[in-house]
């Protein structure tokens, strides 16, 4: 693919509401995870909760969109001056030439979960103030974002579980390549809800401790939430050191709904496709941000796929011990982490991981260290066997 410029980017996670908060935490090896005290959830697990989401107020004209997920969307859009950069891009290109491509796994389903507690005891009806379209529906965050910026062009939500907000980069890149748009707001937003917390617990995939990706004793994920965005434009605006999207690769496991292919075959196909799309060889990659959810099966499968393609030569880490697994936002959060690796020469470590799994032979970073990466690859894999890998690079 023709490289694209990330002309602005931002991430809001349990580590804070800015790229700077993320940078500092990654450099210091700090985790934002805490014992679960979300809503009325009673589970022995740790979570990555974004502070003060419920204090966010949506503009009055967009009040129908009010729910935790759109509050976090707004919090994330307004971080790091990102919204102003979007407005400047709209001024440059026009309201119908800036697309919206956002990923989510559950959007505002929490709103529906809460509404089900307030059903009419006689009729069973849901409360009158519950609006499905603008809160629960998977498109709600993209529709909200489109309305917030007054956009009039292409918009879509991508919902492929935990690969969602990696795949938005690929979808937007296609439309940019074909000239359908001149810029794209890409990203992902997912918020804590009962469905995912109790759901992952039902699969025995949540850890009672802070998650420990690639650790020999890893025993599950820590569910997190987050909102991360990038503004994609053609690279003729790029200056030296700017971050570029160089390639994207997508594949399917075609194996099982909730377990990865044991050899990581689909993961490997996605990474190979991303390298092909970037016109690069495995030896050109200097850092890999692993999907690394911290379940025994996921990390083993990904480790095999990465080892088969890259050997043990490329420094790599999962940052989910810092942010938690932000599910449908993970691809975008970790794209921003790759951008930080490139701009700051920061190779993040893996908070929580103590003893590496001896069966996985990678150059896995327990602690952050300085480096000079020129190109970084990010993996994102989801339920249903949905895989996506992205390659980022620093402009020469």
């Amino acid at each position: 693919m023709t490289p694209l410029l990330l002309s602005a980017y931002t991430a809001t996670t349990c580590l804070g509401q800015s790229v700077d908060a993320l940078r500092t935490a990654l450099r210091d090896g700090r985790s934002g995870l805490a014992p679960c005290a979300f809503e009325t959830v009673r589970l022995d697990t740790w979570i990555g909760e974004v502070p003060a989401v419920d204090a966010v107020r949506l503009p009055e004209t967009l009040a129908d969109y009010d729910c935790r997920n759109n509050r976090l969307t707004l919090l994330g859009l307004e971080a790091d001056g990102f919204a102003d950069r979007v407005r400047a891009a709209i001024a440059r290109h026009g309201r119908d030439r800036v697309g919206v491509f956002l990923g989510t796994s559950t959007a505002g389903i929490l709103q529906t979960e809460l509404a089900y507690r307030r059903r009419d005891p006689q009729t069973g009806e849901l409360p009158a103030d519950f609006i499905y379209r603008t809160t629960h529906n998977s498109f709600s965050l993209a529709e909200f974002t489109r309305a917030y910026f007054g956009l009039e062009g292409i918009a879509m939500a991508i919902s492929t579980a935990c690969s969602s907000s990696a795949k938005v980069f690929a979808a937007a890149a296609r439309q940019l390549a074909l000239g359908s748009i001149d810029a794209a707001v890409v990203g992902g937003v997912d918020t804590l809800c009962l469905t995912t917390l109790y759901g992952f617990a039902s699969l025995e995939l949540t850890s009672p401790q802070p998650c420990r990706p690639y650790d020999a004793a890893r025993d599950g994920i820590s569910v997190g939430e987050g909102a991360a965005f990038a503004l994609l434009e053609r690279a003729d605006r790029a200056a030296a050191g700017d971050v570029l999207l160089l390639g994207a690769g997508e594949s399917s496991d075609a194996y099982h709904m909730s377990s990865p292919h044991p050899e990581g075959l689909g993961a490997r196909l996605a990474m190979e496709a991303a390298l092909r799309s970037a016109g690069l060889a495995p030896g050109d990659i200097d850092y890999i941000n692993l999907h690394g959810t911290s379940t025994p099966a996921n990390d083993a499968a990904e480790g095999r796929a990465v080892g088969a393609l890259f050997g043990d030569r490329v420094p790599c880490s999962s940052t989910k011990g810092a942010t938690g697994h932000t599910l449908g936002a993970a691809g975008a959060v970790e794209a921003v982490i790759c951008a930080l690796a490139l701009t700051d020469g920061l190779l993040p470590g893996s908070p929580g991981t103590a003893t590496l799994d001896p069966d996985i032979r990678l150059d896995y970073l327990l602690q952050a260290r300085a480096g000079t990466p020129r190109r970084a690859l990010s993996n994102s894999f989801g339920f249903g066997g949905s895989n996506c890998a992205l390659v980022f690079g620093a402009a020469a």
Partner: protein
Amino acid sequence: MSAPLTAWIDGIGCLGPGLPDWPTTQAVLRGERPWVAEPTVLPAPAMLPAAERRRASRVVKLTLAAGMEAVAAAGADASTLATVFAASGADGYNCHALCEQLATDDRQISPTRFTNSVHNAAAGYWGIATRSMAPCQVLCAYDASFGAGLLDALAQVAADRQTTLLIAYDSEYPTPMHAKRDTPDCGAVALLLAPERSERSLARIGVAPTRDAADRLADPGLEGLRGTIPALRALPLLARLARGEAGRACLDYLPPMQLAVDVAPC
């Protein structure tokens, strides 16, 4: 858009109320037989392994039936095809059951219910049934989901030169969600889109943005389906394809952006 997004349609699948398959839909859209209001009939998914077949929900049956109809019509090999699934919602019954249980004191939901709750559940079962490891997109744009799916599928055809199967589908929610989202029944449209013309090609389409109003259907029953089942927003396009008629079909997308689809039959 600088140039319209184009592709060749090599196969069509359709399923909805009173529309059991594409040949019947074609006859209805040509005016050769009347549309009769009947619940959507979902065939059993013979392609799935026994364990998955038992768990197959309405949306899984719906997408396999419509998708495989388009694949079979084109004589294509489903195991090689990239796919784009466009749905306004996920499995409504599963969602209702989850939310109902999570509102009680017993929140120990079933793991199968949870894995089937993801928006890409039907796409995941498609992968298991067809063994296709090609890219699989799953998107949502509420009532505009067909248009969003068409735009991404055409982009994959044009940018990646990859034959891509678009499956747009929707299902109904049970009570009490039905009062908040009143999609009446299941409906799906599948288009097999190819970058090059082949002996199977039915038509060439080119899609560009417009601000024109969407075409409506003369038959009130069909117009009702177009307005209430997002996948069937494609009906004006299907009507041109059914009649083998060159010209433009205008489809609803996201106001003020609509899609003008220029159809050139082979």
